[in-house]
């Protein structure tokens, strides 16, 4: 089956049980991801933004089934992988990889870089034979712009930015089509962030990769993504192309997020929307639209039901869930 979308997620939900009482019975559930539907075209980047606890990491991991989703469909290359068994899933995972936020915690300190990069190829039986393997390892290091002598070194000998390059090389080792990037640059220093972002964009072009780019930094997401989804308490509240989202955001939360980012220009004092209060606990989200207690446009309608997904007229990508859109 050929479709222009590499990945389609339909009504994906992940509930985590809350256990309580002496018997440890289930007394409720946290809906970390609630009925999320998304599509990613081949070779494009979908950005996923939201504040801590909104479920963006859970969503990213559910797609790889590192966290088992409760319900919904994940259609990868035209096939629903939700019910795949372990062996079949392993084949799929060769095509889908993940890069984590903390490059210090995601590399085994006792393995050399050569060992780290070889492991995924061992598992998937790729590039076997000493010469072929070595050639492939050099190729990987070259792709992420690290010197050849890195192979025999250990992770502690590298800086944060270099370690993130190693993580990227490890993800690339199995020649994936799709990579979930879970906050790949937020732990890095400012001057190094830009280097890694550029590298990821070059790799995407050269290897025709598809990214799900998860971050809380809207500036970086905006920069790297074709389409951006904004998440709040387990729900996608707005999806749009990167330029539409910034230029004409429909959801008040998106607008507030943008206005909260301090701009590196002291002459531009932007009109700032300061949201009152904190993000509500996902264990007990507010009735109706989850955002209504912090929203300055909230009316009685918002307290009743969660608004349906609405498309912006005249746009193919722009959708939002709000009773009081801004435009």
């Amino acid at each position, binding site marked *: 089956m050929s479709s222009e979308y590499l990945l389609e997620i339909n009504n994906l939900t992940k509930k985590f049980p809350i256990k309580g009482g002496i018997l440890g019975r289930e007394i409720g559930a946290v809906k970390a991801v609630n009925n999320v539907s998304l599509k990613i075209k081949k070779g494009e980047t979908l950005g996923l933004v939201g504040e801590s606890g909104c479920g963006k990491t859970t969503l990213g991991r559910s797609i790889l089934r590192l966290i088992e989703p409760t319900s919904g469909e994940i259609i990868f290359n035209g096939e629903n992988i939700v019910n795949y068994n372990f062996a079949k899933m392993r084949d799929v995972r060769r095509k889908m990889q993940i890069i984590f936020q903390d490059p210090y915690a995601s590399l085994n300190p006792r393995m050399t870089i050569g060992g780290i990069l070889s492991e995924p190829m061992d598992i998937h039986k790729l590039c076997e034979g000493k010469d072929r393997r070595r050639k492939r390892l050099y190729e990987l290091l070259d792709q992420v712009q690290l010197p050849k002598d890195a192979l025999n070194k250990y992770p502690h000998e590298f800086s944060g930015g270099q370690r993130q390059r190693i993580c990227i090389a490890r993800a690339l080792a199995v020649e994936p089509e799709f990579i979930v990037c879970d906050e790949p640059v937020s732990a890095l220093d*400012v001057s190094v962030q830009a*280097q890694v972002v550029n590298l990821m964009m070059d790799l995407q072009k050269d290897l025709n990769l598809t990214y799900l780019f998860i971050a809380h930094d809207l500036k970086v997401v905006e920069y790297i993504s074709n389409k951006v989804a904004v998440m709040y308490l387990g729900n996608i509240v707005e999806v749009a192309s990167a330029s539409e989202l910034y230029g004409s955001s429909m959801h008040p939360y998106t607008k507030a997020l943008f206005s909260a980012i*301090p*701009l590196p220009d002291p002459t531009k004092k932007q009109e700032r929307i300061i949201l009152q209060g904190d*993000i509500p606990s996902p264990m007990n989200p507010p009735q109706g639209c989850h955002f209504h207690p912090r929203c300055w446009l909230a009316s009685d309608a918002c307290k009743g039901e969660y608004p349906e997904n609405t498309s912006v007229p005249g746009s193919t990508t722009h959708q939002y869930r709000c009773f009081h859109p801004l435009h």
Partner: protein
Amino acid sequence: MSEKILEVKDLVVEFNTDRGPITAVSGVSFEVFKGRTLGIVGESGSGKSVSALSIMRLIPSPPGRIKSGDIIFRGESLLDIPMDDMRRIRGNKIAMIFQEPMTSLNPVFTVGNQIIEVLELHQKDLSKPERVRKGIELLKLVGIPSPQARFKEYPHQLSGGMRQRVMIAMSLACEPDILIADEPTTALDVTIQAQILDLMNKLRDELGMGIIFITHDLGVVAEMCDDVAVMYCGRIVEKSDVRSIFAHPRHPYTKGLIHSIPSYDSTSIHKKEKLPTIDGMVPSLFELPAGCSFQDRCGEVKDDCRGAKGSPKLAEVSSGHEVSCFSPLD
């Protein structure tokens, strides 16, 4: 210009390590004025936190020590006074808030208890009920809803933003002259960061404190600060008022930092051009090159930068704008 309350002069801080001594801060000077915010920007390891801790005399010793230089607070050198006197200043006249509100609050005491502790130490003439009343007032001042109830709660019952507000309330308990904020919003979400920055600006104007704001986020600097000092490898490489540093950075490092931030004015989105970057990475303090520490990453590097003339000194290039570079940008 308003009244100068703090002056740091040629501060040098060294740490002993297994591989020999390293100089974390080498020859840093800056001033803090009443009612103004000084931003200290730099990447990890640039010495910004060590400079701040030196002002509080909180450098762990050993292994660290202030090797030379002076810190003058209201005409008095903080490095000469005995520790007992320093304790009277610390938390009272100069207060500090840290990046991680969770680790800087004691989990086994209530929030109220911890605020009162500050008052017990520094305002001994207050009676107990007066302290409680003042504690609740402080929580109200920093915008915590239902302060009376929150006063009796433990840190784990509060969200990250609330905890940072409690930290600010504690630091303001004695109406300090100077507030040192070490990355106070780095651990917070952007919408909460906006609340905290707004609060700090408001309190500065109301109470007329001088603030030293340490951060790596140039956006926050542009938003918060009046003056900026950019640090690199233990030195201040550029110092100026906030407008001229953003409009006209003279040090290649500052310029690189400002340009490596993706901006989203509509033009840049459509172009999808590469982000300008600074090549390479911050050198290890053990292997600093002779001469300018930035030479290996600098696009403008000249022979002079390689050590023949020593390290560049901070010098004024235009009124109030200082830069330490042998060939400053035009």
